[in-house]
């Protein structure tokens, strides 16, 4: 059984690399790897091609995909209605001369979309370009700007209430997704603020840009846009979420995707400009193709790995590692594995690790939170690099990807990695955060 599982892993790696050499996208390369492994397992072990498992695997993250699409659609409508431009212009107008407050508010603007949707890509795609414009206006050079957008977007994905890595790993370990808000908030806020201030805390050029110049670089908010129109959809969103918590037994169960769609309806109703809803939706789906694609394909791959025992052998090797080795290597292993497998790492590595940590007497909530903040750091790493690619695309960054952009991210990444490792080691002492 061991030999078979190792063979499957070898086939997956070989097929993935071969597909990449043939210039297939990461998503299709993973699909090719899943098919190759399925064929081998079918021929050698079961005697039938496990097509049902490939199709079934595509459902694994179906609800997560619905959340992605509906949340990004909502934020895209907010952007299209001029709401995002309105908020950013107000921040620049009021706090241009107060760099500290301005950066603080921009960090929160970057954090909100990802925190609500669990997707750093949503932050990049909805507010990344505008926040980038403000950073340019504040004299931040292109490389540091792209790095700041990526790092805050990565932290937005890690920020509560929705952290998909923690949700998926908790679900796999039969653990309620409860108590994560505290540790996740502390780590993601620390990481986002450090990244923003480290990368954009001081202007790269000496030229001082006036408030007027800064505003001139930003798109105009449409006439008629005001705080009420911007905030009401968010109030609907928060209200529906809160109602489900306050009156859980007297309020229908609406679920996150529908809450986002209802909030999107509010944006549409309140927008001062006519919104081309179908175009926004189809653009949303197009922008999310790499993300949704990877979720669907990774689901299929994981199911084939589970079927053939390859998932088990990976999990087994993880759980028999000594704890000190894990502490010393997780800050590298987790981001690198995220770069390779995206969210699939949560069930693949997260679940056995959580069971192991639990067994060793660590606090599983704090430990999983720390891991769930480490994972998104890998979103700029190959082969997937989904958020990193989205950030450089959205900002039309023309520098070199690894030697400039990724390099600029290294110090904030190191800071976050140290914080998370400390949280892992001292999880028991930090358990008071998990309330």
């Amino acid at each position, binding site marked *: 059984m061991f030999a078979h599982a190792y063979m499957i892993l070898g086939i997956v790696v070989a097929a993935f690399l071969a597909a990449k050499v043939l210039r297939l996208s990461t998503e299709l390369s993973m699909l090719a790897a899943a098919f190759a492994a399925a064929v081998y397992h079918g021929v050698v072990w079961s005697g039938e091609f496990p097509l049902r498992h490939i*199709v079934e695997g595509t*459902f694994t993250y179906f609800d997560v995909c619905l959340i992605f699409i509906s949340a990004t659609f909502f934020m895209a409508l907010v952007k299209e209605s001029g709401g995002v431009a309105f908020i950013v212009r107000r921040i620049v107008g009021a706090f241009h001369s107060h760099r500290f407050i301005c950066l603080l508010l921009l960090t929160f603007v970057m954090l909100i979309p990802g925190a609500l949707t669990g997707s750093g890509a949503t932050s990049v795609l909805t507010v990344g370009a505008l926040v980038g414009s403000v950073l340019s206006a504040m004299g931040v050079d292109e490389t540091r700007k792209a790095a700041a957008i990526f790092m805050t977007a990565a932290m937005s994905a890690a920020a509560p209430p929705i952290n998909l890595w923690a949700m998926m790993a908790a679900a796999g370990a039969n653990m309620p997704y409860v108590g994560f808000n505290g540790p996740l908030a502390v780590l993601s806020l620390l990481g986002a603020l450090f990244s923003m201030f480290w990368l954009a805390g001081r202007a790269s050029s000496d030229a001082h840009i006036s408030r007027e110049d800064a505003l001139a670089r930003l798109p105009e908010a449409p006439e008629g846009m005001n705080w009420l129109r911007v905030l009401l959809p968010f109030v609907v969103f928060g209200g529906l979420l809160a109602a489900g918590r306050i009156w859980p037994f007297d309020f*229908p169960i*609406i679920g996150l995707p529908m809450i986002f769609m209802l909030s999107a309806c509010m944006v549409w109703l309140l927008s001062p400009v006519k919104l081309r809803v179908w175009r926004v939706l189809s653009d949303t789906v197009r922008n999310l193709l790499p993300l949704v694609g990877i979720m669907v394909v990774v689901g299929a791959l994981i199911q084939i790995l589970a079927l053939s025992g390859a998932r088990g052998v990976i999990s087994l090797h993880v759980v028999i590692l000594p704890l000190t080795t894990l502490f010393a290597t997780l800050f590298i292993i987790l981001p690198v594995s995220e770069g390779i497998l995206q969210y699939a790492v949560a069930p693949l590595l997260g679940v056995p690790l959580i069971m192991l940590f639990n067994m060793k007497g660590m606090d599983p909530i704090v430990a999983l939170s720390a891991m769930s903040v480490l994972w998104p750091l890998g979103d700029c790493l190959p082969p997937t690099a989904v958020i990193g690619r989205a950030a450089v695309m959205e900002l039309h960054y023309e520098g070199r990807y690894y030697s400039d952009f990724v390099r600029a991210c290294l110090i904030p990444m190191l800071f976050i990695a140290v914080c998370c490792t400390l949280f892992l080691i001292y999880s028991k002492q930090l358990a008071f955060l998990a309330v």
Partner: protein
Amino acid sequence: MSDALMILINQIVTYGYYAMTLLFACALAWNLRKTRDPQEAVLYAVILIPFILRVLHVK
């Protein structure tokens, strides 16, 4: 709210989800038709599988 009414509203929400899934499936199919990139086209077709099977109440 009576029990029956609550069950009915939850049922309506469920139908809303099928409608939402159909809407997203249409957007995916639309992009499949529009894309000029063959690899994107293949990926759209793969992503459509769970959306269609869910709308058809099969899986």
